[in-house]
């Protein structure tokens, strides 16, 4: 599904990703762990197409297409989703309008008919209920006045309505209390299917207790230095990153 080969990326000439390779297949959940400054968020943003990062070397193939050739919104149309570590507040734009515009943009990219307002409302309400989000929050401006946990939950609502092939979730667990973490984990698990891939980027083992990964990778200084099964996450929890790096 996703194949990253020898990826190098920099921001203003500062190298962040230094030859990262990773392969994610359908039905797999991968977790990338690593210390601060390892380049985890840069990887997520680069995959989503943020233009502040420049790819200098390497390739990324997503579902057979050259991902790096695509604009950010086209990547979403192809089935990629990035859950933000810091979701952006957009005053003046209602959550509902935002999500409906997003869904219909993706559908238009795929040559599908737009969803009617009624069908959309039904679908989004069901997802909000599944994620225990107060439906009133759908009417509010995107992320404005949301708590940290509510913002992350809102990311999950967006992920579920867009139903991506590959979800990259950047520190989706940070800043969540235990109840919110469980709800977010339920959302991720609902997205976990034989035909989808999930890449969790996280600092802590905690989320992985609720979303069991198939593969765990350790990222240090812009590269993946170790890969293994879920047991690797536990080992990291015990001994920290120092031993691995």
């Amino acid at each position, binding site marked *: 599904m996703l194949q990253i080969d020898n990826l190098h990326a920099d921001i203003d000439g500062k190298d962040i990703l230094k030859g990262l390779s990773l392969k994610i297949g359908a039905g797999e959940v991968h977790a990338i762990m690593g210390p601060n400054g390892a380049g985890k968020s840069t990887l997520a943003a680069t995959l989503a*197409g*943020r233009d502040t990062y420049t790819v200098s070397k390497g390739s990324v193939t997503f579902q057979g297409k050259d991902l790096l050739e695509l604009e950010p*919104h086209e990547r979403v149309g192809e089935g990629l989703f990035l859950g933000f570590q810091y979701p952006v507040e*957009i*005053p*003046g734009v209602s959550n509902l309008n935002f999500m409906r515009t997003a869904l219909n943009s993706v559908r238009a990219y795929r040559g599908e008919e737009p969803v009617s307002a009624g069908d959309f409302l039904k679908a989004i309400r069901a997802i909000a209920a599944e994620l225990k989000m107060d439906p009133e929050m759908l009417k509010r401006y995107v992320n404005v006045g949301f708590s940290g946990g509510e913002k992350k939950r809102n990311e999950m609502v967006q992920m579920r309505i*867009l139903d991506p092939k590959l979800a990259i979730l950047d520190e989706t667990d940070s800043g969540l209390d235990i109840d919110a973490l469980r709800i977010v984990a339920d959302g991720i698990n609902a997205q976990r299917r034989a035909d989808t891939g999930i890449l969790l980027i996280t600092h802590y083992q905690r989320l992985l207790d609720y979303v069991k990964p198939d593969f765990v990778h350790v990222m240090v200084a812009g590269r993946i230095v170790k890969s293994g099964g879920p047991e690797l996450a536990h080992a990291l929890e015990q001994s920290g990153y120092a031993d691995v790096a």
Partner: protein
Amino acid sequence: MPTLPETETMTALTDITAVREDSRTLADQMPELGDHRSEAATRFEALGLPTRKNEAWRYTNLRPLKTEPAKDSAQDPGLPVELVPGSIRLVFVDGHYAEDRSRIGTLPDGVRISRLGNYLAANPARARDLFMGDDGVALLNSALLRDGAVISVANNTSLARPVEIVHVTTSARRTGCHLRHRIELGERAEATVIERWVGTPSAWANTVTEARVPEAATLTHLRIAGDGAAGTITSAARVSVGAEATYRATSFMIGGTSVRIDSLVNVLGEGGEAHVDGLSLAGDGQTHDAVTVVRHQVPEARSEQVYRAVGDGRAVTSFQGKVIVDKDAQKIEADQSFKAIILDRKATANAKPELEILADDVVCSHGATIGELDANALFYLTSRGISPEDARAILIEAFAGAVLTRIENDDVREQAAAAISTWMSGHVDGASHA
């Protein structure tokens, strides 16, 4: 309506001989204004049109009126679609009241709408009350004003239908059309007045609107230079707000080559409220200028100003907003917010907020920001599959929404939103984004 001689319609805008001659020609039309006109002409002679050296006019570009020859052909732009269905309509074509295009219908008891000429003929003493002007533009208006609308609403009377005053210019020449409107509300009266401009690029439409909003009255006042507007438009409103009265104003600058909308609001009664808002969407080569002065002369009153501006191409969009709180005007709440976004680095946005507060127990705030569209928000939207063009449109719409949400009339708000969408469709492609 007598046909005016050629020299008058061709008023050379700065030629004092022509100004004098024109004001004499006009003297026959509203003889009550004789002294008013000649004094204004004399004072104009001393001042001339304001230049950029004049602080209050530093961002307004009146130079083309003097120096650039007219270059368009004459045309009648027709009338814009009315903002609120069933409105009363007063249409002035090149400064002349056009009865055939106007529609008044049956007015409720206590409401009178007349032309300024008829009003002054019936109330000659009122000529002395007319504002003469303290700058060249207002003085020229006093010297050369040709007509205007007078809207009177008696105590306790509500005029449900909005009054639309449409200023049409059709001339291919450098003509100036000077009109004077008066809005006189009684106590606890309510009215909505919408001023609009459509016309040709060479013409100058210069209006002064005087409004009285006494005790517990409510005036909603919209001024719209929409996409049918062209040329130079200067509109000055002078408003007094009494106790427990509300003045709710919104200006839209979308069309026009050079548009300036002035608001001078005096809050004279306790519990008085002034909401003075505006939106400018300026494209390449356009100059939009909003100038406000809100003065609190008494305690326990409130004012809010919300202005938003978007500039594309080589647009210049400016906001000069002043809040004055007099020494004894304690317990005033005054807020002012101006934000501008430039879509092109060749565009200019100017902000000059001023607070002049002499009282010590007041809550006043002001904020002015000028920037580009938020790159984080743009990326967030595109990372959800929304195209960059749509993402820009969504953000501009949201930005302008800060003004729109404050409009109470649904028809007006919806049409304003539609006008913004139309404007954006021509300005969000990012092609000129540097």
